[in-house]
């Protein structure tokens, strides 16, 4: 099992609600660092791309760019209703929808705002997906941890 998920968090057109919950998941009450999570802020160091909020004209390129900069294997996690489907803003003229309009999304975490518990569950699930992708990529069991 992957034990060291490093996360990059990008906030699309969200309301902040999910972002602060993502941050809250890092803080003492929830402390996702228990699972080895580090919020790196640097796509080149990241394993999990965590997106909150929907995609619009302007951040489309940013999301694509971050995704491309991340080395394989990588998992994309859409957190919150906005990132899953566009949510309550789906009908806004400037909202294209969830990030799955631009990049492949591996995991959808619902909630408005997504609770830190949901985010933790999501991260745990993302780890399994990551491990699967790694196996596929290297075709071998992990160098033993």
């Amino acid at each position, binding site marked *: 099992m992957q034990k060291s998920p490093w996360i990059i968090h990008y906030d699309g057109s969200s309301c902040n609600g999910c972002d602060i919950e993502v941050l809250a998941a890092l803080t*003492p009450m929830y402390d996702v660092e228990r699972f080895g999570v580090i919020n790196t802020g640097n796509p080149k160091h990241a394993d999990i791309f965590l997106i909150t909020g929907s995609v619009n004209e302007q951040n489309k390129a940013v999301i694509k760019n971050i995704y491309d900069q991340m080395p394989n294997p990588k998992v994309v996690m859409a957190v919150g*209703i906005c990132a*899953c489907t566009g949510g309550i803003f*789906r009908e806004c003229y400037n909202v294209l929808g969830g990030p799955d309009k631009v990049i492949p999304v*591996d995991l*959808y975490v619902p*909630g408005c705002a997504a609770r830190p*518990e949901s985010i*933790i569950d999501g991260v745990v699930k993302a780890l399994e997906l990551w491990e699967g992708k790694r196996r596929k990529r290297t075709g071998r069991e992990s160098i033993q941890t």
Partner: protein
Amino acid sequence: MPFFTISKTILRSLFGRPATLMYPAVPREYVEGSRGHIEIAVESCSFCSLCQRKCPTEALSVDRETKIWKIDRLRCIACNFCAEACPKKCLSMATGYSPAVTSPGETEEHHA
């Protein structure tokens, strides 16, 4: 002392118990009334589609003919508006969120 003013707090934390809730090893107990997900007692639903019309995100769809009530969990913002609108009071807000899924997938259907 103007240096290390935080010492008391961090030393107390170091030797005390961490504030971490240890989820998921310890399951979370949600307070009563916490808005998590919508549940339906479909046997009392009259398929009047009022909930569908009220839902601000169009997460619900109700089909009177086939008697199917559907919800897309990835659209629901847990606002409780549908439950307030339902004349039959068969919708209710339960605690705890719906789980993460790996594909946008299908809506959840409830048949009468």
